[in-house]
């Protein structure tokens, strides 16, 4: 049994390197150089899968990437399992584990074959016409059944252990395909050593069809020797990059091309750390598509049995792999090219018969060659059926009659069939580049028309089939001669298009397959046309033809031809579908590359990050930053930690990493005027050394960002922004500076990464900071709240801000980032006598909410004006213009009843509202219930007295507090409303949004 179907003395396999692969648990001996498909065929395993809809037994149809049938589950060990691999492109290695798919309980006995029996029910689009009653049954009954029946293999279930990488390259010429045309193009293109050439081919070896061509000679060499010589020549040219096992998968705008290189899938034991695949992104000066052509099957009833292959694929198996599905071969063809397959099969010692659709006088010189080889030819014959179940046993043929029918039927016993219905140029790449395709009637195929981007086609992919012409064509394309590819020069391969083989059989269950994998038959396509689907896109979608994993490589033109025939139109009048990337299915991993975990998005960390990590901080993601969220001690919960931190700041002093705030240095004689136009408030009169809180709008009038701005000098400002808003604000400012306010002289520089910012806040802040500071008078009078001084801290140059986002007196120490951690440690050490407490963003949020300070993005959501959040005082009434001013005057922005910022206190102080809870007037109202607004911030504050407004003397008391945006909120202060909770509603008191130290005295101490 072992190697029962192996042919002696043939093939490029290495018989000195025997290997064993597994198929459905069975050991399958093979050789190095085999594919999974050739290994299975070598061992007489022809039935390798079940089709999508009818679960028909299927075998290998093709020898390459276009394979629709032989899809295997491949297991490379350690979680490296994935479904739907085309057996024809899986390189065999010792220990490779393969399984068939889409059957239950087994490949041999599959209950799904009931669908085949009942196939008349499952005509095209049947599911649109039924399963509608009762209406709930679709989701509960029909759909689950259909879903289980559909699908092919099983998805991987464990995280993929493999790595994927990306490479980027530029080249002058990218050649896709290393068959005769591609190799000739590469030879010609690379003569000039200054031109960078990349040539990629999806197969493990360069050569394309030459790898199974045993009869042609090139320059006096055999095809295989010419390939070897050419590959050697190219590999010696340093300007040529050769990429085998690399598929050119997609052609994007501006000659941006994606290539997927498979690095380890052919290895038993890839070295650890080796990436599985590499996605190349190439920007090519010019692309030469030398992508070849795919053979089409003939369409007749039962054209899908295992053992029935495309003729040239059968030839490839015989010549390249030294295997055959059977010894008794029928070549069924409507063209000349299949004769070579017949001749090669004969020379391999097989019994061969040719059935030719063409009349005797339509057959060319190939007839003589076949006859000389001793092959019987049945010309002017149709194929009307086949016999066999899991392997073909016979082909039913009959002579065509003058009236278009068929004569007496006979069955040719056989165990292998090679079919040829002509060739379809592989125009995917040029179609992706958006070149128009033109239909060539003689070739019965679409070929590339005028180039759209900088691309050319050479060889069979533009309908040039004869070897010498392919070589010439490739040479011409590679040498850049001739601006655009000339029209095809060679004769069609003497083939007569046939859509559906003439037949006398009209059995209900007969199925002449067009799309093998999706089980779309000629009947289905005709039904679609009958039902009014006339565009090929409609037919495709209604029948699913061309939508399987092979994307119609072998079926599209047959389908198009049948539609055209039914409508009595020419194929181009029916249209061709657009080819979408990728050319062949490409792993998600290849596209995702290294981007996983920390490499998914950059992590921005502050100079004090490691310190926080050591202190056990928990972090939250804010934009790209990792921010210390809270600092739990021992087994403290988040709540406990935050309560402790909140108390510490109010009672003594806390230290907080504010580095992530965006910072922009605005410098120039017109800096103040620029800020005047960008912010809502006024800047001209701000004195150097003073700070001001600034509010910034988008041109639509809604709050965009905020932050404290310090005037460093007459011509210099230090701006701070929100953490997430920094890039947006800089972009906004640059846009206005460069494109609108071009009369102003100033520059903008992002300094976010240049300054580390250490906030020290609390009644003892000055006592902690002052001893470390030199060159600055730290007294309250000399250095009041909302001012900034330059000096030194710990001997390091600093900008020391006296500002407060907590309501306490405090400082924000800006030092060059490199000193951040050292100064932080010094401050922390200096604070020890005061029990200085590191606090995180959560505590910062609570403290500012106690004070009613908004956070842009939390209280605001892009639909909020300054007036809405009670900041109309920051909107200059005197400035003639600033960004957003005009929009603030629009009717809806000044309308009554807008949502406004208020405070909320739950009647039960222990009830904590959800942020996002909705506020209503009447919780009994019917749905949809009128809503007044929502809770924007909600915390448990330890500093606010249970009864209401905070009193520092009663701190430790504590209660929940919230801020909310509520329609007409300012006028509702003092009233009671209801907020949603998980269970229902809770009653709340509307207050002013300040819960602590309403006079703001503490910050000024």
């Amino acid at each position, binding site marked *: 049994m072992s190697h029962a179907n192996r042919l002696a003395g043939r093939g490029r396999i290495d018989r000195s390197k025997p290997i064993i692969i597994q198929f459905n648990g069975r050991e399958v001996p093979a050789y190095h150089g085999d594919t999974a498909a050739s290994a299975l065929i070598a061992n007489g395993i022809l039935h390798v899968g079940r089709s999508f809809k009818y679960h028909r037994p299927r075998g290998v149809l093709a020898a390459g990437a276009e394979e629709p049938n032989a899809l295997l589950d491949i297991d490379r060990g350690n979680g490296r399992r994935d479904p739907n691999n085309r057996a024809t492109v899986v390189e065999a290695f010792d220990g490779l584990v393969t399984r068939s798919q889409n059957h239950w309980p087994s490949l041999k006995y599959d209950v799904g074959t009931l669908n085949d029996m009942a196939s008349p029910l499952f005509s095209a689009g049947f599911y649109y016409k039924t399963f509608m009653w009762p209406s709930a049954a679709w989701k509960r009954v029909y759909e689950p059944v259909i879903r289980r029946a559909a699908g092919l293999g099983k998805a991987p279930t464990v995280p993929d252990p493999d790595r994927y990488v990306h490479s980027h390259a530029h080249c002058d010429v990218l050649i896709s395909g290393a068959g005769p045309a591609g190799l000739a193009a590469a030879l010609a293109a690379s003569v000039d050593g200054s031109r960078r050439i990349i040539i990629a081919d999806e197969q493990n070896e360069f050569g394309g069809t030459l790898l199974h061509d045993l009869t042609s000679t090139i320059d006096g060499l055999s095809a295989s020797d010419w390939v070897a010589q050419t590959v050697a020549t190219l590999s010696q040219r340093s300007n040529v990059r050769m990429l085998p096992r690399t598929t050119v998968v997609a052609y*994007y*705008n*501006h000659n941006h091309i994606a290539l997927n290189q498979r690095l380890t899938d052919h290895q038993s034991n890839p070295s650890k750390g080796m990436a599985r695949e590499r996605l190349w*992104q190439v920007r090519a000066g010019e692309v030469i598509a030398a992508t070849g052509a795919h053979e089409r099957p003939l369409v007749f009833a039962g054209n899908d049995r295992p053992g029935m292959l495309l003729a040239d694929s059968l030839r490839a198996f015989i010549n390249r792999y030294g295997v055959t599905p059977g010894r008794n071969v029928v070549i069924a063809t409507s063209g000349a090219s299949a004769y070579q397959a017949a001749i090669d099969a004969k020379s391999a010692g097989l019994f061969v018969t040719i059935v030719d659709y063409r009349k005797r006088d339509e057959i060319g010189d190939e007839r003589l060659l076949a006859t000389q080889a001793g092959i019987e030819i049945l010309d002017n014959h149709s194929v009307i059926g086949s016999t066999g179940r899991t392997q073909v046993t016979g082909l039913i043929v009959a002579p065509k009659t003058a009236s278009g029918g068929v004569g007496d039927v006979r069955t040719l016993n056989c165990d292998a069939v090679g079919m040829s219905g002509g060739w379809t140029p592989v125009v995917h790449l040029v179609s992706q580049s958006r070149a128009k395709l033109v239909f060539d009637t003689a070739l019965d195929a679409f070929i590339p028309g005028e180039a759209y981007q900088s691309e050319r086609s050479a060889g069979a992919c533009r309908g040039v089939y004869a070897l010498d012409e392919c070589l010439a064509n490739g040479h011409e394309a590679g040498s850049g001669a001739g601006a655009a590819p000339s029209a095809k020069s060679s004769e069609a391969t003497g083939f007569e298009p046939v859509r559906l083989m003439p037949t006398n059989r009209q059995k209900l269950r007969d199925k002449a397959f067009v799309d093998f994998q999706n089980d779309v038959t000629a009947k289905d396509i005709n039904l679609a046309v009958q039902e009014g689907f006339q565009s090929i896109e409609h037919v495709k979608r209604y029948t699913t033809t061309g939508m399987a994993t092979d994307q119609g490589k072998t079926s599209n033109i047959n389908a198009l031809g049948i539609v055209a025939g039914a409508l009595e139109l020419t194929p181009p009048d029916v249209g061709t579908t657009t080819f979408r990337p990728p050319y062949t299915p490409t792993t998600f991993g290849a596209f995702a590359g290294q981007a996983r975990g920390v490499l998914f998005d950059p992590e921005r960390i502050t100079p004090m990050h490691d310190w926080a990590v050591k202190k056990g901080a928990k972090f939250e993601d804010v934009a790209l930053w990792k921010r210390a969220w809270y600092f739990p001690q021992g087994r403290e919960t988040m709540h406990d930690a935050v309560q402790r931190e909140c108390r510490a700041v109010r009672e003594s002093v806390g230290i907080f990493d504010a580095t992530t705030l965006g910072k922009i240095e605005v410098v120039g004689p017109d800096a103040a005027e620029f800020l005047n136009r960008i912010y809502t408030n006024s800047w001209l009169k701000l004195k150097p050394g003073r700070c001001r809180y600034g509010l910034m709008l988008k*041109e639509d009038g809604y709050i965009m960002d905020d932050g404290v701005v310090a005037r460093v000098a007459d011509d210099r400002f230090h701006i701070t922004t929100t953490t997430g808003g920094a890039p947006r604000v800089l*972009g906004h400012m640059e*846009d206005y500076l*460069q494109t609108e306010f071009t009369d102003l002289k100033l520059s903008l520089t992002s300094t976010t990464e240049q300054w580390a910012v250490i906030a020290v806040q609390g009644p003892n802040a000055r006592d902690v900071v002052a001893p470390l500071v030199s060159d600055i008078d730290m007294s309250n009078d000399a250095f009041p709240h909302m001012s900034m001084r330059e000096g030194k801290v710990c001997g390091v140059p600093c900008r020391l801000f006296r500002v407060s986002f907590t309501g306490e007196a405090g400082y924000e120490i800006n030092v060059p980032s490199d000193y951040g951690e050292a100064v932080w440690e010094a401050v922390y050490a200096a604070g020890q006598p005061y029990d200085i407490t590191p606090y995180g963003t959560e505590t910062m949020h609570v403290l500012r909410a106690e004070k009613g300070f908004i956070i842009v993005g939390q209280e605001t959501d892009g639909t909020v004006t300054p007036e809405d959040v009670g900041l109309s005082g920051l909107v200059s009434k005197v400035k003639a213009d600033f960004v957003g001013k005009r929009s603030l*005057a*629009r009717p809806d922005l000044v309308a009554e009843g807008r949502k406004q910022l208020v405070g909320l206190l739950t009647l039960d102080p222990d009830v904590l509202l959800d942020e996002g809870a909705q506020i209503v007037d009447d919780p009994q109202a019917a749905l949809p219930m009128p809503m007044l607004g929502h809770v924007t911030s909600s915390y448990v504050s330890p500093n606010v007295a249970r009864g209401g407004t905070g009193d520092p003397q009663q701190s430790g008391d504590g209660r929940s507090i919230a801020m909310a945006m509520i329609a007409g909120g300012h006028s509702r202060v003092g009233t009671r409303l209801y907020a949603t909770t998980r269970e229902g509603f809770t009653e709340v008191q509307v207050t002013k949004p300040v819960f602590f130290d309403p006079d703001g005295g503490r910050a000024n101490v």
Partner: protein
Amino acid sequence: MLLIKCPHCGERPEIEFHCGGEAHIARPLDPSQLDDVQWAELLFYRANTKGVMAERWNHLHGCQRWFNALRNTVSDKILRTYMMGEPRPYIGGEAQGAATGTLSYPAPGERSK
């Protein structure tokens, strides 16, 4: 991914750039002179040209400079890039696309910018 020629830096891949939409919509010196309809047109109404359009690009991850480009929105081919402040070049034969209409609301005729 487009390949864009920054007039300051040369050809760079699109991921270095930020697109700023239709070009040559100047912010008026005194926006308060515009009524609500004119202001809405300035902020929100766009030609959305199918064909050659002038659009703004910022070389964000490069020189950070804004410039303009003429691009065909059907082919995505960039015909020319030019400095901010330069008038829109007209290239022979280009389709003008949907750049000439008036506001869709309210009454036509009285609102031309």
